[in-house]
C-alpha cells in the first residue's frame, strides 16, 4: 500500500479523491492504493471513513478525483461488483428472509451458476449453518454481521470491503471474523475494512490508512504507525487498594516518567503503553495490591489522530 502515485496493478486505487456536500468537505484530496492483504481504514467517527468506502464501493460519486477497483472505475460500472464484496455498516438486513434465503438472493443476483451451493459455502464459511433457516429478524447483531459477510462472499470476490465489520460482535465472534479475514488475505484477496477501534485494526491489518477530518493522516504498515502512536505519551488513571505504594513501585519502571497522587487515585504517564500493561499486573501480584480501576485519560482516537496529524 502506498500514498504515492497509485499503481495500475493495485486492487483499489484512489486518486486525489474529494467529496463534499454543499460547503462541508467530507473527504479531502485523498490518494492511496491498496493491494492484497488486510488493510485497515482507521479513524474516529465522522472522519470520512464511510464516505470514502462508499466511493470505493461505487455507491457514491466522488466530487473530484477517481476511484478504480480492479482497474475499473468504481462509479457507475456495475460490472465491478463481480469482483467486489461489500459489507455495509448499517445493520438492517431484510428481516423477513431467512439467512439462507438472503445468501441465495445475493448469489442469484451475482448470476452464479449454482446460487444454492454458493450460498451454502458462504454460510459455512461464516459458521452460521445452524441459524441459516431462521429469519434474519431474529438474529443477534453479531449474527447479522455474519450473514452480511456471507452475502458479500457468495461470489468469492477478490476484493472485500467492510464498513465497521466488528460492530456488535462478541469477543468470540470477533476472533472468528479475524481468522476469516486473515484467511481471505492469505488467499491473496484484498480486504479493506474500516474501524474506529485501534485494537481491532492492530489485530487484523498489516497496513493501515489513518483518516482524520477527511484527510489521510498517515498510511503504511501497521508497525510504523503503531510506533508513532505508542511513542506519544499516554496518561492513565489508576485506582488501587494502596495507591501510594503502587506509585512508588511504578516509578521504578523505565517506561513510567511521571506519577501523580491525589485523592481520586494515581495519574500515571508512560512512554510505552505495552510495557506498562505488562508490568502492572505483575506489580499488583507481587505486592498484594488490588487494582480497582485502570482507565486511559487521553486515549480517545481523536487525541491519537490529532497527534498524528499535528506531528
Amino acid at each position, binding site marked *: 500500500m502506498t500514498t504515492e502515485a497509485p499503481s495500475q496493478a493495485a486492487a483499489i486505487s484512489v486518486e486525489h479523491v474529494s467529496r463534499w456536500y454543499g460547503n462541508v468537505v467530507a473527504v479531502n484530496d485523498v490518494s492511496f492504493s491498496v493491494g492484497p492483504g488486510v488493510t485497515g481504514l482507521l479513524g474516529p467517527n465522522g472522519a470520512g471513513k464511510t464516505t470514502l468506502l*462508499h466511493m470505493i*464501493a461505487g*455507491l457514491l460519486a466522488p466530487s473530484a478525483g477517481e476511484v478504480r477497483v480492479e482497474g475499473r472505475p468504481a462509479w457507475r460500472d456495475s460490472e465491478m461488483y463481480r469482483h467486489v464484496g461489500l459489507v455495509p455498516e*448499517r445493520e438492517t438486513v431484510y428481516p423477513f428472509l431467512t439467512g439462507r434465503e438472503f445468501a441465495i438472493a445475493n448469489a442469484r443476483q451475482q448470476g452464479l451458476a449454482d446460487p444454492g451451493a454458493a450460498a451454502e459455502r458462504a454460510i459455512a464459511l461464516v459458521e452460521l449453518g445452524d441459524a441459516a433457516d431462521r429469519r434474519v429478524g431474529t438474529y443477534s447483531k453479531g449474527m447479522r454481521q455474519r450473514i452480511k459477510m456471507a452475502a458479500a462472499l457468495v461470489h468469492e470476490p477478490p476484493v472485500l470491503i467492510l464498513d465497521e465489520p466488528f460492530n456488535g460482535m462478541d469477543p468470540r465472534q470477533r476472533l472468528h471474523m479475524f481468522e476469516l479475514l486473515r484467511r481471505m488475505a492469505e488467499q491473496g484477496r484484498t480486504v479493506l475494512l474500516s474501524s474506529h477501534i485501534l485494537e481491532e485494526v492492530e489485530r487484523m491489518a498489516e497496513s493501515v490508512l489513518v483518516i482524520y477530518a477527511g484527510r489521510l493522516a498517515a498510511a503504511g504498515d501497521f508497525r510504523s504507525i503503531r510506533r508513532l502512536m505508542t511513542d506519544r505519551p499516554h496518561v492513565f488513571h489508576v485506582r488501587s487498594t494502596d495507591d501510594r505504594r503502587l506509585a512508588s513501585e511504578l516509578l521504578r519502571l523505565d517506561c513510567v516518567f511521571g506519577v501523580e497522587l491525589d485523592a481520586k487515585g494515581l495519574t500515571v504517564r508512560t512512554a510505552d503503553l505495552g510495557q506498562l500493561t505488562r508490568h502492572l499486573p505483575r506489580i499488583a501480584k507481587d505486592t498484594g495490591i488490588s487494582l480497582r480501576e485502570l482507565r486511559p485519560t487521553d486515549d480517545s482516537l481523536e487525541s491519537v489522530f490529532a497527534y498524528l496529524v499535528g506531528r
Partner: protein
Amino acid sequence: MIHRMPVVAITLRSLLDRRRFWLMLLLAAVPVAITLLGRVLGDVTFSQIVFDRLVIQTVLPLIALVFGTGALGAELEDGTIVYLLAKPGRRFRIVLAKAAVAAGLTIALVLPATLLTGLIVATDAPDIVVPTVAYALAAVAGGTAYALGFLTLSSITSRALSIGLGYVLLWEGVLAGLLPGTQTFSIRQATLGLADALQGVDGETLDAGTSVTVLVVVILGSLALGSWRMSRYQLRGGD
C-alpha cells in the same frame, strides 16, 4: 422464487409481510361489502357509483400508493437497497421488478374487488356486465400507472407517501373539479376516461385517445425516470 427472481421475491415478501397488506385487503373489500349490503337491501342501482367513486377514485389510488411507495421507498429508507445496488447488471431491472410487484399487487386486490362488485348485482341487473369488465380493465391500466408513478416518486423523495396522498386528494380530488384543465394531468381522469370508452359511453372525462396517451406516458415515463434515478442513486449517511 428467491432462486429465480430475487428482487421480485424480496419486494413481494416485504410488502406481504406487513400489516399493511391486510389493511389494503380490507380496503379492497369495502366496495364489495357496500354492494353486498345494497343487494341485501334490494338496491342494485348504485353499482356504477361504487365503481366510479369508490373503486377508481378511492380504493385504486390508495392501494397503489401504499404498494408503489413501499416497493422501493422502504429499502431506500432503511439502506437495504445497497444489497440490490451493489450487484452487477443494469439497475433498470431492479426498477422493473419492483414496478411489476407494486402494480401486480395493486391489480391483485382491485381486480377481484371490481369483478366481485359486478358479480353481486349481475343476476338482478344484467346490464352491469359491460361496465364491470370496462372498469376492471381500466383499473388494471390505471392501477399500473398509479403504482409506477408512486414508485418513481419514492425514488425522488422520502416523502412520497404524503406527496402521493396530496396528489390523489387535492390535485385529483379537488383541483380537477375546480380547474378542468388539470384533468389532463390526472391518472384518475384517464382511468375513468378509459372505462367510459370501453363501455362505449361518452362521459364527462377525458376522451379515449387522451386517456390511453396519459396512462401510457405515465407508465413508460415512470419506468424511464425511475431507472434514471436509480442508475445515479448515491448512498448517503455515515461519516
